[in-house]
């Protein structure tokens, strides 16, 4: 079996987000870029499967849509343990264009398991996995928190209200994974970092596509109001503030 893990290049989750040009451009100066945390967990689980089922998993490929500046992130995925990588040479604009580009790659090769993080930590769109499934006419399972090989099938678990749903599924399929799929993202070791330099990273040009959304601008969330401290003995003052100032009671 061959696994494809789709990875996004996102700002480190501790980045202070700033915009330029009238809030129309993300200010990337000084930003540390990382693999989207959900995608990194998906990759970790793919590697665990390959290690646990020697012979059953033939190859793990990672794919990213981005300009050349995303290559350090792709190299990290290779250092963690992916066998090869594909970069689609396009600055992604929206979820549909990402899903379309990914579907073209998957049509050209025969991947059995396609893993996507449930969302990316920058735009939090949660759309690519579902769109990809529709474009390829592949079955998909969302919110997957466990995956393992079970005979000819794959056994999945997904979180549902009040418990878990256990699913058996045949390949090919798209697993849209959430946290829990792996305990912790794997940290590359020094040997992996050395080997990553020589692993294949193929750059492919994108197919042309129409955009169905029109980006206008970004907006900051409202600043948090200043915190007022009330003496715990002064309940009257607390009630007065909640009633007249916060207007919540």
């Amino acid at each position, binding site marked *: 079996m061959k696994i494809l893990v789709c990875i996004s290049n996102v700002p480190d989750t501790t980045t202070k987000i700033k915009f330029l040009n009238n809030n129309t451009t993300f200010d990337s100066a000084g930003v540390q870029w990382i693999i989207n945390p959900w995608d990194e967990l998906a990759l970790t689980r793919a590697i665990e499967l390959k290690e646990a089922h020697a012979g059953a998993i033939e190859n793990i490929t990672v794919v990213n849509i981005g300009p050349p500046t995303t290559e*350090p992130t792709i190299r990290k995925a290779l250092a963690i343990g992916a066998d090869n990588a594909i970069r689609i040479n396009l600055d992604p604009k929206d979820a549909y264009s990402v899903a379309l580009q990914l579907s073209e790659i998957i049509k050209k090769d025969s991947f059995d398991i396609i893993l996507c993080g449930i969302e990316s930590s920058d735009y939090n769109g949660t759309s690519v996995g579902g769109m990809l499934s529709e474009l390829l006419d592949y079955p998909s399972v969302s919110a997957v928190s466990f995956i393992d090989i079970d005979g000819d099938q794959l056994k999945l678990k997904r979180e549902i209200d009040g418990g878990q749903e256990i699913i058996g599924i045949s390949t090919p399929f798209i697993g849209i994974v959430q946290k829990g799929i792996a305990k912790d993202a794997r940290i590359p070791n*020094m040997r992996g970092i050395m080997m990553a330099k020589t692993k294949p990273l193929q750059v492919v040009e994108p197919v042309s596509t129409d955009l169905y959304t029109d980006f206008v601008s970004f907006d900051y969330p409202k600043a948090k109001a200043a915190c007022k401290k009330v003496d715990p003995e002064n309940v009257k003052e607390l009630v007065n503030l909640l009633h007249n100032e916060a207007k919540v009671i």
Partner: protein
Amino acid sequence: MEHPLLNEQHNLIRESVRDFAEREIKPLAKELDAKQQFSVELTHKMGDIGLFGMVVSEEYGGQGLDYLSYIIAVEEIARVDGSHAATVAAGNSLGLNPIYYFGNEEQKKKYLPDLCSGKKLWGFGLTEPEAGSDSRNSKTTAKLIDGNWVINGSKIFITNASSEISIGSSIQTVSNDENGKKEFTTIIVENGTPGFIAKTMHDKMMWRASNTAELYFDECKVPESNILGKRGDGSKIMLSTLDLGRLSIGAMGLGLAQGAFEMALKYAQERVQFGKPICKQQAIAFKLADMALKIELARNLLYKACWLKDNHKPFEKEAAMSKLYCSEVAKFVADEAVQIHGGYGLMKDYDIERFYRDQRLLQIGEGTSEIQRLVISRYIGC
């Protein structure tokens, strides 16, 4: 990190080692320090990620990286904890390097794979009770009798030499030649050899979770083939080992300073006095500015020294400068960081208290600040 000497691989090493240190070492560092406990488990984990044998070639189980990569790794461990940075730095610079650079093929094949994997550790026995800065005042003797070296004497302050995974040490000995002329020879002694005792030293002020030993030799016999390098080459091996060791002590100083600075900055951003965060008070803001400045300069100097080494250029003067400057920056930054923390900085609940203790070794170990100035002064023509 943007730096003219760093490439994509260096940045990935920094990111990976930082993640590892934050995830695996940081949660345990305070407790291990308090209990004076050396952690075999963490040492093995550091081995699994490839922190030992970083510059050793792959044929002996090493990682085959350049020196700058190794220094970045030590820096990142030291940013979180001095004890574990010491285990890694001593493991590589003092334990592995003499065998890798001066050992014969048989010795390399026998010892390096286990040392490169972090399964085992090795000591470098140079310092003695009466031979510190004056290392040529060594009293430990080795006499060649009937095909065996017979060793008598003792060593002190030897890192990684007596843990439960320590398997031996390279020992600097006085081995007078046939004419009775004083010469130094380095000899390999495995732990468990009759007449050799490695005893753990306790109650250290700093690096309390690292392993430090006293070594005793009483008519200790090892085969003549245990010689490391050539007879009489002991001084050369010692000086070469210390030149490289200076880079890693520099990295420990830089990393400790970076960690202490980050703690101080965070505290200063959160601590409110006189109605605003103390980082907005000029007295504290200027301290933080000076700390950041010195760290930047220390990093530039240390990385330049590594670049010289990696490019096969003379680096000894810059190594001594890096060791001296980085360790003194660590002292300055840790001291200011405690000052910024005020009374809380004196409490063990805050990591800065441990950093303040850990920095103190750096101006003493592997050549005191005074000896570094002596070395530099010789290079500049004094």
